[in-house]
């Protein structure tokens, strides 16, 4: 295989919402937003497609980020008390985010004596030449940012006579620059004192003797007044007048959700509008007893009052408003709220303040992701229909009025459309546009509505119980609570040409859905397939199946369920596949597999794969703990197989014990070949349909293959009537071959290769002239991938042709595997197929097909990141996705040709070029000494 097919492995872009965001900033001039995370990442977003990511060397949480106004530079403050300077630089005609300087502030956390110098707030003057740092101890340090070197200008520690009471002022809570006079800053202390400080004359202009514990400050645009928010849930408006240097009382003081005790108002914004009354936006302040647990943000203007009710904590928010100095009013156009789990944008100009759908930062994990499925080269027809179905669900799906529009997306509109389908814990399947850099939600399919679940009744009750005050409005889509864990989607299979979809879930439900452009009100056909086949001695101890709704159900345009097949016992579906041309679905659980003709609504085959000694299979997920204990006794190896986290815990516990007492037996592993009666050996791991030679070398026909956890492969010859006779004649299945792999490792994938060694095309691909017909002259072969070995067998004899023993050679096991097509960089005509495999060590191996020769190997995921490895999905073009956090997919590419990465440019003008300067200052150089009354 040629080298120009593979690029060096590249992790190209992250999709989704950053895990644990901790800071937010906005540059109104460049119209860019920056988000910092607890893991030390900084991400910049502008117009759709404009994305940049930077990662601090130390994984300390980013506590604050500030843009150097209009310069394309960012200052970040980490919780290890370091400040970092980032710069947007142009390389190869596109923009990247790079760290150019870092600066250690004295007073690392954890050392008590220095905690007084720990920075609590930062203020960067709009002119970008001065940085003010407020500290825990109540001091304010000034740093000059000439040529981007920190130089301490001064240090202010101030307690006015009038305010002395033996206590300190508390930490500096807020630093705000005067909107009109850039030399004046407002300093707010935790205990309530607010000071207006003149930087030039170095003296106090005004004192505001607040008595309430201060949370935040904001200027009114004119600079004639400011607003303070407090820990009692109230806010005060203060007048600033030069005639009165010491103000005791505010103009007004309001506790919006009083009179009962309220929680603190963490942050307040005050925006003037041309139309009249100012817009007040604040987070928190909810009545402590009744709604203390809500995450709210209030928007107030005159009599309009909306309490945005979020499902996760408010990290920070800002408004997009007019910053032009000549304009008299703020006139905010949008509110951007960063929550712990999603980003919400509210249009402040439209009546009713509706939300604006975001073109990026999609909360993938609005309900936990349970499986994913990628479709490459989506036919335009399916694409349009999915989009139109999505638009009817959420009509506001154009991103033209997206308020953040900094930077230019240079990437061409991706030609081949790609869909990523994610299955979720709440029984929904979400369709994402995965063609480009930003993962956009397209359509959401819910399967819960065809079942009777407990959630149905509760919903109506809570709705009725809701009070009028405060005027809550549910905003955002992050909803981690699932009504019923049985609804969770386990497997998805799609036919992109016929618009048919099969989803299968935790309670053995297999749902066949058909894409329809019309609304429909119909009954779903329900069938039950007994996979135990009357086998005696087995009693299912797990959950019940989901009761389907009786009567007809109304379905919106989109994918509409037509058939529901329920496996008995209702164990989670472990494999599913669809052949739309033959109207067949195959599905498997831990007990066996079944074949169902969804056209005639009739079962074709059910086969039990249980080993007679297997007791664990019948326990279901509810008694997992018990089974864990049981297998712990049996062997360590089995634990490792079934529940890796359990093993880790045992390992860690053992390691700890070993430290304390060397006598204790260390972690040991039993060396024993697999035997037929290992637990859960009957789990069906993969299913596949193929038109190939199973019974003899001259007649090919439909076949179905199933592979199990114990290395068994069952191959059935199917008798599928022609299209015309489909209604009269039924499909029949005959067992053709049974293969027992001697090493008994779980079979994770089966694929049939044609006479040229290429994978067979998908259903309809050939009949619709979208793919070359497979070679039916040469002899076919079947590629069987187990966790330990790859093997190619000739058909129909099933004689071993080639093999590669991965585990025996490399000491790793297959976790995910796919056949990908790699197209050459130089010629679009030339492409080769390869087997791409992710192992339990998190590395990716590429093998040629069908020779099974190792080609390349890359490190991809940390081997400790079990959920990352489990979530990995490969595309047919040599790319892949895996979850780096519950909310983010990392996209990677193995192909030299197909790479999806951000291609954007942000043009900035900078007064100084900082990256070339060589001098370095470390620490504070005090130029004028601190003063104190």
């Amino acid at each position, binding site marked *: 295989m040629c080298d120009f097919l593979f690029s060096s492995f590249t992790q190209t872009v992250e999709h989704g919402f950053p895990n644990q965001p901790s800071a937010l900033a906005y540059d109104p001039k460049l119209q860019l937003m920056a988000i910092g995370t607890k893991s030390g990442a900084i991400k910049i977003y502008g117009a759709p497609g404009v994305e940049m990511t930077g990662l601090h060397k130390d994984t300390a949480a980013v506590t604050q980020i500030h843009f150097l106004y209009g310069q394309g530079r960012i200052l970040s403050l980490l919780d290890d008390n370091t400040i970092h300077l980032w710069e947007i630089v142009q390389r190869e005609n596109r923009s990247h985010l790079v760290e150019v300087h870092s600066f250690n502030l004295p007073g690392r956390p954890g050392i008590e004596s220095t905690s007084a110098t720990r920075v609590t707030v930062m203020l960067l003057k709009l002119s970008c030449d001065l940085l003010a740092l407020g500290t825990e101890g109540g001091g304010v340090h000034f740093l000059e940012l000439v040529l981007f070197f920190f130089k301490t200008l001064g240090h202010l520690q101030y307690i006015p006579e009038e305010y002395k009471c033996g206590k300190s002022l508390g930490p500096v809570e807020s630093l705000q620059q005067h909107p009109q006079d850039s030399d004046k800053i407002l300093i707010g202390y935790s205990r309530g004192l607010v000071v207006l400080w003149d930087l030039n004359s170095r003296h106090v202009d005004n004192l505001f003797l607040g008595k309430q514990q201060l949370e935040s400050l904001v200027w009114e645009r004119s600079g004639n007044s400011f607003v303070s928010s407090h820990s009692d849930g109230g806010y005060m408006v203060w007048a600033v007048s030069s005639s009165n240097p010491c103000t005791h009382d505010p103009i007004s003081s309001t506790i919006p959700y009083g009179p009962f005790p309220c929680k603190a108002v963490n942050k307040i914004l005050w925006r003037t509008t041309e139309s009249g009354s100012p817009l007040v936006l604040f987070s928190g302040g909810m009545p402590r007893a009744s709604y203390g647990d809500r995450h709210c943000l209030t928007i107030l203007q005159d009599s309009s009052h909306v309490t945005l009710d979020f499902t996760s904590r408010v990290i920070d928010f800002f408004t997009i408003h007019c910053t032009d100095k000549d304009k008299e009013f703020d006139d905010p156009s949008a509110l951007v709220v960063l929550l712990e789990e999603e980003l919400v944008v509210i249009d402040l100009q439209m009546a009713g303040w509706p939300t604006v759908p975001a073109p990026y930062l999609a909360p993938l994990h609005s309900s936990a992701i349970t499986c994913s499925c990628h479709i490459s080269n989506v036919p335009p027809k399916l694409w349009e229909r999915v989009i139109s179905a999505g638009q009817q669900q959420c009509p506001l799906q154009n991103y033209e009025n997206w308020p953040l529009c900094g930077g230019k997306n240079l990437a061409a509109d991706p030609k081949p459309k790609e869909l990523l389908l994610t299955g979720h814990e709440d029984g929904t399947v979400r369709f994402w546009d995965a063609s480009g850099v930003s993962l956009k939600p397209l359509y959401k399919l819910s399967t819960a509505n065809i079942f009777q679940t407990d959630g149905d009744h509760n919903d109506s009750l809570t709705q009725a119980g809701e009070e009028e005050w405060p005027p809550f409005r549910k905003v955002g889509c992050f909803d981690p609570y699932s009504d019923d864990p049985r609804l969770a989607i386990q497997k998805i299979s799609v036919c992109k040409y016929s618009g048919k979809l099969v989803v299968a879930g935790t309670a053995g439900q297999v749902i066949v859905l058909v894409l329809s452009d019309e609304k429909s009100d119909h009954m779903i056909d329900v069938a039950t397939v007994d996979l135990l086949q009357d086998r005696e001695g087995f009693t299912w101890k797990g959950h019940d199946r989901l009761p389907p709704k009786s009567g007809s159900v109304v379905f919106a345009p989109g994918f509409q369920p037509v058939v529901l097949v329920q496996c008995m016992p209702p164990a989670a579906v472990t494999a599913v596949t669809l052949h739309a041309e033959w109207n067949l679905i195959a599905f498997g659980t831990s007990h066996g597999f079944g074949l169902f003709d969804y056209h005639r609504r009739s079962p*074709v085959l*059910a086969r039990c794969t249980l080993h007679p000694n297997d007791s664990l299979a019948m326990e279901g997920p509810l008694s997992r703990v018990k089974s864990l204990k049981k297998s712990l006794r049996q062997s360590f190896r089995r634990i490792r197989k079934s529940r890796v986290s359990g093993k880790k815990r045992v390992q860690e516990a053992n390691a700890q014990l070993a430290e304390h007492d060397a006598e204790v037996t260390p972690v040991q592993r039993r060396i024993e070949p697999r035997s037929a009666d290992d637990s859960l050996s009957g789990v069906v791991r993969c299913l596949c349909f193929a038109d190939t030679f199973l019974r003899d070398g001259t007649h090919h026909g439909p076949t179905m293959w199933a592979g199990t956890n114990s290395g068994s492969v069952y191959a059935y010859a199917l008798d599928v009537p022609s299209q015309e006779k489909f209604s009269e004649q039924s499909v029949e299945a005959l*067992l053709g071959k049974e293969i027992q792999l001697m090493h008994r490792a779980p079979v994770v994938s089966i694929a049939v290769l044609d006479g040229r060694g290429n994978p067979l095309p998908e259903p309809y691909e050939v009949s619709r002239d979208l793919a070359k017909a497979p070679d039916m002259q040469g002899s076919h072969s079947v590629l069987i991938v187990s966790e330990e070995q790859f093997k190619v067998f000739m058909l129909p004899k*099933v004689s071993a042709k080639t093999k590669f023993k991965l585990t025996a050679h490399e000491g790793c096991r297959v976790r995910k595997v796919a056949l990908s097509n790699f197209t050459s960089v130089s010629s679009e005509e030339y492409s080769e197929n390869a087997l791409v495999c992710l192992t339990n060590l998190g590395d990716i191996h590429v093998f040629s097909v069908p020779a099974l020769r190792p080609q390349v190997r890359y490190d991809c995921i940390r081997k400790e990141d079990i959920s990352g490895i489990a979530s990995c999905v490969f595309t047919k073009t040599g790319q892949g996705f895996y979850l780096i956090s519950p909310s983010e997919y990392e996209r990677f590419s193995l192909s030299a040709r197909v790479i999806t990465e951000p291609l954007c440019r942000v043009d900035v003008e900078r007064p100084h070029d900082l990256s070339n300067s060589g001098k370095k200052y470390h620490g504070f150089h005090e130029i004028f000494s601190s003063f104190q009354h």
Partner: protein
Amino acid sequence: MNKNHRVPSNRTLSAVEVKSKFGAEFRRFSLDRSKPGRFDEFYGLLQHVHRIPNVDLLVGYADVHGDLLPINNDDNYHKAISMAAPLLRLFLQRKEEADYSAFGTDTVTRKKTPAALAAVLLRPDANKKKPPIIISLPKDFRPVSSIIDVDILPETHRRVRLYKHGQEKPLGFYIRDGSSVRVTPQGLEKVPGIFISRMVPGGLADSTGLLAVNDEVLEVNGIEVSGKSLDQVTDMMIANSHNLIITVKPANQRNNVVRSSGGGSSGRSTDSNTSFYGYSTPGSMVMTPSHIIQNYEPDEESEEEEDLVIEADRGAKLFPQAGARATASTSMPALPRYEPHLDLRPSNGTMASSVSVGSLNACDRGLEGRNLEEEGTVITL
């Protein structure tokens, strides 16, 4: 079992006196001790001197302890010659009449290969008192372990091959993490290593006596384990469990193979350690180490890795019409064929036969009711 029976070379005489007994007849002849030739030549010679050219023979000899031991390959022939002091007493039996019970002294029963089993069962001599232990011919034995590559490994290391063969006996050992001290250019260094932590009594590993607790595992099937985690090494061992070759540094270094420093192929091995289920050949001989290494080389592909393919019967309808209760299929299925022949040792045999029973029963399931292994199924709607 590894007693050292070194024969001083000065006692070795040039000629070996051979006294061969077949039935009631004796023959005497002599052989050159330095040039004993091959076993098949020797076998032909025996047939010639006894004038029984077409009789299959079982050749035995009395060793220094008086035990009757077989001669059936070059190795034990050479050993017998070298051990003769100076008389070599041979006992020939017709193969079909052979009294196997006479051989050996210290043997355990094992599951018989079909041929060996047949040989025992077909024993014509029914009058004889049933011997307590039946042992088959050495050539019919399957080795369970061997020491290999003695000539290329350092003396402190031992490469052991365990033959699992799908028998019921467990491999029977555990491994753990640990640390060992290595000599490096920087001096002594403590490095992490993998060690044998436990032996299951009666297991294959235990019964060979070649592996012991605290032996450090250096390689698995030729792949170094250094830098690999305990889980990785476990996976490698399990993946290779049908033909596991582990190189260890024994914790007990006193039983090592000692080679003369003269080097070359004349290295003297004093301890062959080749074990046949506890049946070991005591004594020593002078030979090139490569002779000890392999007396049994399984054809790796066929032996270790043959997957079982069951051809389902063509005629049997495995699935009835949907909705209808199973109806008996009229066609009589043929026995399933096993494409690659597999040893039908009991452990495998059970599995294989139960499957075949299943496919057989599939056709008359409707009448017979249920069977645990049956393939055809009825769908209840």
